[in-house]
């Protein structure tokens, strides 16, 4: 972090101890006049009132680990500026993002979508994945047999979000960013999302769950 955060003015050791408590700290470029985002580690948080441009800038900084020139980023206690490529890749593996539409691939069914990242990053875990996915879906109140064979075109908006979320949970990330959690959902779907954070907390105690919302904060 380079600008207005309190840690920026302190010595490296105290900066490090302050950053250690930060899950996501984003300082937009100074000329934007935007508020910084400073989220402590652990629990569920909501960042509301984000414009599309600001959300895109934040997501690009966090997911590509490339903040805009003049912007600063602290992620899971680490200042991005000081990291080499391998450290960045390792840090990125600890962060997951759930897009508003679930981020599913349209030519894969729900099961194939859910285990796709696992097949790439930890293929040895695929063998036990079926039981894990079933258990997670049941915990989130869904019927695994009804959902897993469906293609995205046959899923409801909630089911797409659910499949995307289970995909994230399988990787047990330390920081989860969720875009517009309740957006586009009916009443049943919105009620279903209430179980998202408790399931994450049970699976990843100490993890941070951040909702990014376009609407003003409540």
């Amino acid at each position, binding site marked *: 972090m380079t600008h207005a955060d309190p840690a920026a003015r302190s010595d490296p050791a105290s900066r490090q101890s302050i950053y250690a408590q930060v899950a996501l700290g984003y300082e937009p470029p100074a000329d934007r006049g935007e508020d910084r985002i400073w989220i402590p580690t652990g629990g569920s948080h909501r960042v509301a009132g984000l414009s599309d441009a600001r959300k895109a800038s934040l997501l690009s900084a966090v997911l590509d680990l490339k903040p805009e020139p003049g912007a600063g980023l602290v992620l899971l206690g680490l200042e991005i500026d000081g990291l080499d490529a391998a450290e960045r890749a390792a840090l990125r593996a600890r962060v997951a993002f759930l*897009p508003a539409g679930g981020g*599913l*691939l349209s*030519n894969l069914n729900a099961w*194939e979508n859910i285990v796709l990242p696992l097949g*790439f990053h930890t*293929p040895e875990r*695929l063998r036990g994945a079926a039981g894990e996915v079933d258990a997670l879906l049941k915990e989130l109140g869904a019927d695994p047999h009804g959902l897993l064979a469906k293609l995205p075109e046959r899923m409801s908006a909630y089911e797409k979000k659910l499949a995307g979320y289970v995909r994230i949970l399988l990787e047990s990330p330390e920081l989860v960013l969720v875009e517009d959690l309740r957006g586009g959902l009916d009443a049943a779907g919105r009620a279903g999302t209430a179980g998202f954070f408790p399931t994450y907390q049970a699976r990843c105690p100490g993890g941070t769950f951040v909702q990014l919302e376009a609407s003003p904060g409540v």
Partner: protein
Amino acid sequence: MIGVYREFEGCMRLMGHVLRRLRVLALPPVTEALARQIYFTGASATAGMVLRGAFLGTLIIAYVIDVLEANSALAVRILLWVVLREIGPLMAAVLVIQRSGTAIATELALMQISGEVASLRRMRIDPRDYLVVPRVVGVALSTAALTFYVQVIAVGGGMLLSALTIDASLGQLADDFFVLASPVDFVYSMIKSLLFGVAIAVICCYHGLHPPGVSINAVPKAAINAVTQSTLLVMLLNVVFAYLVFGQAFFGLVTAKV
């Protein structure tokens, strides 16, 4: 001109990535994508090849024997030259461009426009690993397999149908075939068709991943660019191959000086 250079450079980079990352084929999702590609390009395209191939072989033998009043040895020799060396790989390549090339370019362009490619990146999956590597390998293997089908069906079916329809003995045609056929012809056509497959898949993947816009109109444009350029490159490769291996191109109009 700059655009052409960029596309060429982009295709070369994509090709380099495929060669460097062949090991991802061992990952389960990529293996599955490879199997799907081989099934779609190589297996489900075979039905249409049988009749076309057999009629092509018959036409060549009948034309040579009946119209040119040649003997069966010359008919078989022409069949070998034309079908094994040239028409087999070209026919397979054209079929692959028609069916799979358009499908690949369209599918990838749609994935790019709808954000699915970005979604892969957000899952820390390199889209080239998951989308391009299995397609290039699958299309290359399938093109070689289709070429083999065309050759077998056109030569075998052609000799069989010729024996039934014109005054040519199947035994004589078969004897001439085994005397004249050379393994070089098969190896040459297999290598050529593998290269055709690689070229088609790389070009179609490149245009699919780089549609000329972000609206749905960019999808058919990507497919047209992919088909046009891959057809052109296949023809060019065919000429270069003929010149390098047999010292002749454009049906003998260009001849290598030894």
